[in-house]
């Protein structure tokens, strides 16, 4: 059978790729997608541990993460649309007027 650590490694690599996406890309939508990737990585770890401990809680938690992610995407994309209307761009580097 597959060891637990394999799944955790996969989860870590996916999370790392998500982080890289957030760090390197400037397209707000892609940053958003990288966030989803990180969610996904975390979910994978949750499900793996749920099986390891034979506990349902991990899966339930994934379910809630998905729900919250859905809400977040709805609001986030609405924000992006609203920003695009005023700035005509979704480059996050151009949204820098709010500074100290």
């Amino acid at each position, binding site marked *: 059978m597959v060891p637990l650590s394999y799944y955790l490694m996969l989860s870590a690599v996916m999370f790392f790729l998500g982080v890289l*996406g957030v760090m390197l890309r400037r397209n707000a939508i892609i940053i958003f997608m990288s966030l989803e990737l990180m969610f996904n990585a975390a979910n994978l770890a949750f*499900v793996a541990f749920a099986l390891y401990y034979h506990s349902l809680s991990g899966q339930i938690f994934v379910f809630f993460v998905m729900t919250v992610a859905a809400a977040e995407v709805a609001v986030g994309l*609405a924000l992006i649309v609203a920003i695009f209307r005023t700035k005509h761009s979704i480059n996050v580097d151009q949204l820098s007027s709010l500074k100290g």
Partner: protein
Amino acid sequence: MSALIFFFTFALIAVGAAVGMLFSRNAIYAALLLIVNFASVAFLYLSLGAPFIALAQVTVYAGAIMVLFLFVIMLLGAERLPPSQELPWQRPLGIVLAFLLLIEAVYGIVFRVNSAATLSLPVVEFATPAEIGSALFSTYLLPFEITSVLLLVAVVGAIVLTRAEGGARRRALVSQITQAVATEVPEHKAETPEEEKELV
């Protein structure tokens, strides 16, 4: 043995799709690659004895959410961005930090997780939709209800944010919505999350 082959196949697909998403210039491709990643992870969920989560992953993530992404990308027509020269130091620093994070995670997994621990499906039925449902509506009833309110808030927020600037009309609509929310909250509580997500 076959389980290992199954795992590595889908793990490679998932990582490959993620890397592809990371480096694709076109946002549309990125979204499609992400869907591939989600789908392969859904297969892994199946092998981890989580059929409900796997199907929810496909319908909610790969289905609803990613479709929304694609829709927005196409709506805005902002698939490509010109290169920018802001914050030149941020990029290398970000990469270094991200690698540090990966190293830490790998270190933690290698030295803190029992490497002999293997995952095996239990003999009895585990995590059937019925079980998850009963857990959701008994132990996790309160969080479940709260998420329904959260989703409602998200719906209202999305509508308000994306409305065209319209002065009085907009304000009137906002108050209308808040009134509707105030009266409709009890109804929404009873709805299933799936329905709400489709609404989103």
